[in-house]
């Protein structure tokens, strides 16, 4: 079964774990911003009720150091590269996209339009996509948050604004309290919630967007197994990205590919076949 398997942004450092990166169809970088960021104070992570919460806060070396000293070393790994960019205004997105535009190593730019651990950008998601589009001719994937009232509608406007694909989804905002002190377990209170509990929510987003736009979709959210990949493809994704599962199991890309291979022998002969099965029920897009 030929389903591209990527990592989710922020869930793998290809330079500290090149062996893991080598097992992916493309490596997606942690989100890069125009200026360097130290990120949020620790504690930054907690596990609660099947969710992982994180509050990393976009720690990154900034687009300049990234472009001159990180990207070349990533290129040496020989894995196709997607660069995730983020920021706090349309000019931030523009700055990053412009800087990357003439760097061959960056094959795709993923726009992180949805990080719950930094204050919201004052501009709309659509404006951020438009600004990015004006700054680069590279393929742009818009990464959306599931915390939006009508994601299919948002996908339509993002497509109109020039996105070439969708990455669905980023984390939801969650809170875990210490049972003894009743204080938040993360230093900054809430954090982004990821992991298997996100899966049904992510699947609903993929399903709604696949019925709304023609763009290719990278399915993200709680993928733990080959069966989960099949669900995402059936819901309308054409690739998947692994996030939290990489923390629990750095060998998961190979394992999941194996599981897909075995699914093929059980009769799911191709991703297309899965989608056909699932979208036979196309009227179901009504809700």
């Amino acid at each position, binding site marked *: 079964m030929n389903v591209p398997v990527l990592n989710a942004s922020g869930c793998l450092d290809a330079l500290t*774990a090149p062996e893991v990166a080598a097992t992916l169809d493309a490596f997606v970088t942690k989100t890069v911003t125009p200026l360097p960021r130290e990120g949020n104070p620790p504690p930054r*992570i907690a*596990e609660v009720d099947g969710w992982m919460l994180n509050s990393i806060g976009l720690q*990154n070396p900034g687009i300049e150091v990234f472009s001159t000293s990180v990207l070349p070393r990533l290129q040496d790994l020989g894995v196709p590269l997607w660069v995730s960019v983020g920021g706090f205004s349309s000019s931030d997105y523009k700055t990053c996209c412009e800087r990357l535009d003439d760097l061959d190593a960056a094959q795709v730019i993923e726009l992180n339009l949805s990080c719950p651990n930094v204050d919201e950008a004052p501009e709309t998601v659509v404006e951020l996509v438009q600004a990015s589009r004006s700054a680069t001719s590279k393929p742009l994937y818009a990464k959306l948050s599931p915390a939006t009232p009508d994601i299919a509608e948002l996908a339509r406007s993002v497509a109109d604004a020039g996105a070439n694909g969708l990455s669905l989804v980023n984390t939801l905002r969650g809170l875990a309290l210490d049972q003894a002190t009743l204080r938040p377990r993360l230093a900054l209170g809430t954090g982004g919630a990821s992991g298997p509990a996100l899966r049904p929510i992510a699947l609903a987003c993929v399903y709604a967007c696949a019925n709304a736009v023609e763009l290719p979709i990278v399915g993200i959210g709680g993928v733990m197994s080959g069966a989960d990949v099949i669900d995402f493809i059936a819901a309308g994704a054409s690739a998947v990205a692994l996030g939290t599962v990489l*923390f629990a199991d*750095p060998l998961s890309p190979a394992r999941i590919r194996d599981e897909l291979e075995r699914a093929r022998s059980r009769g799911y002969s191709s991703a297309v076949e899965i989608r056909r099965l699932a979208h036979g029920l196309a009227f179901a897009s009504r809700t």
Partner: protein
Amino acid sequence: MKGQHAVLGSGSSQTQVLGTARRERLTVVDNEAVGPYVLLRLERSGMEPGVPGQFFMLEAPGQLLPRPMSLCLAPPGELAFLLEPIGPGTRALAALAPQERIYVLGPLGNGFDLAVERPVLVAGGIGLAPMPYLSEALGGPPALLGFRSERHAEAARLLPGAEVVVEPRLVTELLPGEPSDILACGPEPMLEAVRELAPSAQLAWEAPMACGYGACYGCVVEVEGRYIRLCIEGPVL
């Protein structure tokens, strides 16, 4: 603190964690109470014990993320961990029965630098965990252990010959006056106090960790105003 500190963000470290680490499913040999702690013994299979102070990520049944644990003992054919059951993950590990199997990843991180001349081991509470294996590697140097109760102090039997104090006495009261190379592990306030008294001490720190191999940026600690990943720059700093 020792170790080359990262500048910032992606790619600052050369440590190729997965280069030396393996991931295998190991069988539980036994789980024994040691005072209020639990000694979890696993069949070693093909895994390396690594350098004392390095750690392993242990699958905790029913939990999404594995939990970091220092290697405590490396008897032939086994890897043994000393656990303090304080939350769902450590409780799940403490409840493992013989023959059950869990995934283990390691050894990870940077252990203690063993090229020391006058080693003295200092540990507080569950900070005892890496000491038995470290003591073995260093030929049984002097060791100072502090515990919060007599019951916790039962665990001192894992390090025969160590000097033991129980609260309200603190282990830092025992630190030798003469120059020595301190290797310490314990709660943050204890490590801060040790550093105050012995600035060149090697200290094994803790932080919540999701991955243990540099992937998540969850385990940062502040060093000279910057956040570095404890799992690949430490845990011994």
